């Protein structure tokens, strides 16, 4: 220990001079814009300016993004990566500037894909300007990331966000001092209220204009960022050795990464000159022997030391009283009240969704009734048949998915943005461990109650591939709104509400059980929970709507096409007269094992496309909506149970395949079909004596 403290003390003296940097403007090191951005295909097409937003999670980065870009946003993935990418256009005084929102990260290590994507974007695609959004109340931790951006020699503007919350916490930041120390412009903001947005925009345009100025010397950049003597000497030594090789990353940064034993960079350099890697590892070893810590930890500690120093000089901290967050957390994280509030919030969310959803759905059905045909067109030209099917699919999407999913996701985004969802994650963390997951997995699982498709995409928040897959598998077991419609329509309406509730509870137990088994069976690593606990705040309507849209949009490009095309295909099958042959083929399963009428066979095929089709087609086939007249209570429950579990619907299968490949998707699908049939048969035998 004494060693660590000692080197900390030694550092501060040489640092204090080094941090006295010139206010010389900066980022001029890449004056050769055109050639540098060769790799950026889009830039070529669009020749405009590119601004990247970077920063930690929970600093209001998306609020800044929304303020800058308004409605012109493109959401997608980073090429070949399952990392979301948001892009928008900022229009200012006739200029069109592309704004790229990078993922919220804490460092440029190789901890996650998000970190790799971000560092490669900044280092290789060289955006014209990087806006580093920082949380003004946690300056020290945010500056840790800022320092890494400066190491990457990014042309930086610091957006000091949430200054209102900072002042509430009794902190004052000397903006000019901070700008002077870092050598970059600093713009105080309250992005959520639109404060500082104009200033930031002007700063962006101003800095971009200056980018043609003579390039800053490397020493100019270095002077701001020097570490303790032992570390600094080795960085410089290594950087000099790197002079000979051609590499797209800044040299000093590569030297630091080599000392940190960064896997990607070490591999890259090893491919060019093996002796450099061994030189780096010798230097790293010297450091490790000196400090008795591993080199990456030493460098993180050094960086934090610099951040600490800058923060200490630039801010003054007053006394903070008991905050609202503390008071709310006393309830939210309470052993009893905490769980009760989770139950109330999630229960309330589901009830609200289905009350509101049913109303909207009814309304939409009224509107669409004149043009909708419930009765499938089964004769006539093929074109008509397909058109009818496709149209029915569209109507189903409009009346059954949107009315439920939309209100669900709006309220969920509200809960999320308020900060409460992280508390739910914390409270349920231990329970998730038995399934090889941790608290964060509760987010995709809850999303699954709306629609499984966005929920599968949300599994990206998990850290390891194993955890992503496990979470997605469990998500497919969560009854989405379409399945809830079936459960309510069959069981709650014609048996009683308690059996419907029992199915829900049974499903949760099943998820826990299968989660435990899958955790043991699937190879790979699981890591535990490490998550920031943001302060509670009043959600912003803009962020909530944005988040809702980000989730619902996958309905439009995955669920709707699957609904429309699938429904048309089914209509064709129906019209071609395959109904009875299919039913006959499936009757050993449907009739003999599950104890259902043989007509149900085709329903289960239809349910592949849209789960709620089972209930619609049931009405068509039996020519009645009083299902109690045609099916016994046991049959109703068994049908609902099988529908709930038997297969992720077509849209989910497509989404799983996109995220995990066809092999894993097929395994999940086959398992769920077999499992549901098995369970259905057992249930029909066990329930007989009771109903």
């Amino acid at each position, binding site marked *: 220990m004494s060693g660590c403290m000692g080197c900390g003390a030694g550092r501060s003296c040489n640092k204090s001079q080094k941090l006295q940097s010139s206010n010389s403007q900066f980022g001029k090191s890449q004056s050769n814009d055109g050639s540098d951005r060769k790799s950026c295909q889009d830039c070529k097409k669009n020749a405009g300016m590119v601004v990247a937003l970077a920063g930690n999670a929970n600093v209001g980065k998306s609020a800044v993004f929304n303020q800058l870009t308004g409605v012109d946003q493109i959401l997608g993935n980073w090429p070949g990566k399952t990392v979301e990418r948001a892009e928008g256009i900022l229009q200012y005084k006739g200029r069109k500037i592309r704004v790229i929102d990078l993922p919220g990260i804490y460092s440029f290590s190789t901890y996650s894909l998000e970190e790799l994507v971000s560092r490669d974007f900044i280092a290789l695609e060289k955006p014209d300007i990087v806006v580093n959004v920082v949380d003004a109340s*946690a300056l020290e931790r945010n500056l840790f990331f800022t320092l890494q951006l400066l190491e990457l020699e990014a042309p930086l503007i610091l957006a000091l966000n949430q200054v209102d919350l900072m002042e509430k916490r009794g902190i004052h930041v000397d903006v000019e001092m901070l700008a002077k120390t870092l050598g970059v412009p600093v713009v105080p903001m309250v992005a959520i209220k639109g404060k500082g947005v104009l200033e930031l925009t002007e700063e962006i345009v101003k800095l971009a204009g200056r980018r043609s100025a003579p390039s800053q010397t490397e020493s100019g950049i270095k002077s701001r960022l020097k570490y303790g003597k032992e570390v600094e000497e080795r960085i410089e030594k290594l950087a000099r050795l790197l002079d000979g090789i051609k590499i797209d990353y800044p040299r000093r940064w590569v030297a630091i990464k080599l000392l940190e034993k960064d896997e990607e960079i070490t591999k890259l350099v090893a491919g060019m000159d093996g002796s450099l890697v061994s030189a780096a590892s010798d230097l790293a070893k010297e450091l490790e022997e000196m400090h*008795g*810590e591993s080199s990456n930890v030493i460098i993180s*500690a050094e960086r934090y030391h610099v951040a600490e120093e800058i923060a200490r000089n630039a801010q003054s901290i007053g006394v903070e009283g008991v905050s609202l967050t503390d008071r709310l957390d006393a309830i939210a994280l309470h052993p009893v009240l905490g769980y009760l509030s989770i139950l109330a919030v999630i229960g309330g969310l589901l009830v609200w969704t289905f009350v509101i959803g049913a109303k909207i759905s009814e309304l939409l059905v009224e509107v669409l009734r004149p043009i909708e045909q419930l009765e499938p067109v089964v004769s006539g030209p093929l074109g008509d048949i397909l058109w009818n099917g496709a149209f029915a699919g569209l109507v189903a999407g409009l009346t059954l998915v949107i009315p439920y999913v939309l209100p669900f996701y709006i309220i969920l985004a509200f809960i999320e943005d308020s900060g409460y969802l992280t508390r739910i994650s914390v409270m349920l*963390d231990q329970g998730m461990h038995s399934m090889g997951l941790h608290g964060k997995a509760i987010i995709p699982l809850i999303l699954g109650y709306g629609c499984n498709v966005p929920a599968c995409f949300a599994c990206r928040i998990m850290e390891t591939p194993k955890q992503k897959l496990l979470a997605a598998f469990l998500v497919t077991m969560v009854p989405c709104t379409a399945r809830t419609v079936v459960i309510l329509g069959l069981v709650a309406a014609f048996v009683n509400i308690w059996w419907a509730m029992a199915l829900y509870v049974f499903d949760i137990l099943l998820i826990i059980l299968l989660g435990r088994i899958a955790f043991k069976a699937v190879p790979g690593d699981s890591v535990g929970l*490490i*998550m920031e606990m943001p302060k509670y705040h009043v959600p912003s309507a803009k962020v909530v709507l944005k988040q809702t849209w980000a989730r619902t949009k996958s309905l439009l490009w995955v669920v709707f096409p699957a609904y429309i095309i699938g429904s048309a295909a089914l209509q064709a099958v129906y019209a071609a007269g395959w109904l009875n042959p299919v039913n006959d083929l499936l009757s050993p399963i449907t009739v003999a094992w599950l104890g259902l009428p043989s007509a149900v066979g085709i329903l289960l095929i239809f349910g592949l496309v849209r789960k709620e089709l089972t209930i619609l087609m049931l009405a068509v086939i039996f020519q009645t909506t009083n299902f109690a007249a045609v099916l016994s209570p046991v049959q109703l429950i068994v049908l609902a149970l099988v529908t709930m579990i038997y297969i992720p619907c077509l849209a989910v299968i497509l989404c799983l395949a996109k995220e995990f490949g066809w092999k894993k998707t097929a395994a999940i699908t086959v398992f769920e079909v077999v499992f549901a049939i098995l369970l259905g048969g057992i249930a029909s035998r066990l329930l007989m004596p009771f109903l």
Partner: protein
Amino acid sequence: MPKEQIEEYIEAIYDIAGKNGLAKTTEVAKRLHNAPASVTEVFGSLAESGLVRYEPYKGAALTDAGEEVALKIKRKHRLLEVFLSDILGIDPEKVHEEACRMEHSISDEVGDAMCRMLNAPARCPCGKLISPCEKEIATCNECRTADGSTDSDKSAAPRKVVPLTDLRPCQKGTIALLRGDKKVIQRLSDLGLTPGTEVVLMRKTPMGGPIELCVRRTNLAVGHEIADNIFVKAVLEA
């Protein structure tokens, strides 16, 4: 007095009295199947060698030196339990007895080598925490990558560290050692949990759930298993 006997007594006092309580003579006697009179005698000689504080008619409490011996022996005991059950595949029911016999005869070096081989386990098979070694290292990785010869260089003055999970809510500590997966250590130091940094345990959640800690003006939730492997020097409140 033979080393084994001293260690048995220290262990018994540690188990009965905990870290700073008093172990009654009769309780120790009952546990070790000895007569109270001979226990009193041993307490006397232990007190002489500075391992316990003996209060006549009341019992004995461990001194700092005694506690150190206790923690060392407990560490070996629990490492042995993991080794016996995980590597040798011995019935977990039996490992305690076996470890009780073996713990006195293995050296610190063997204990540390087992720790390295077992990838620095955090807990014994029955779930009790294994205290970290006394080497001057910040992460277990270093120990794993270092060859055996450098090991002895790293042993230094013992330090009193506790897992973060042992702090009381609102108690402060400074980070001493991070143990565990390389990526997890990277993430923790990226979030500011670097050696020497002051942290405050804000809250523990029910049922062994994550703990909430405050570091560099940010609150983090950290899973219990990860927090078990973050060792801190506790800062006593004024």
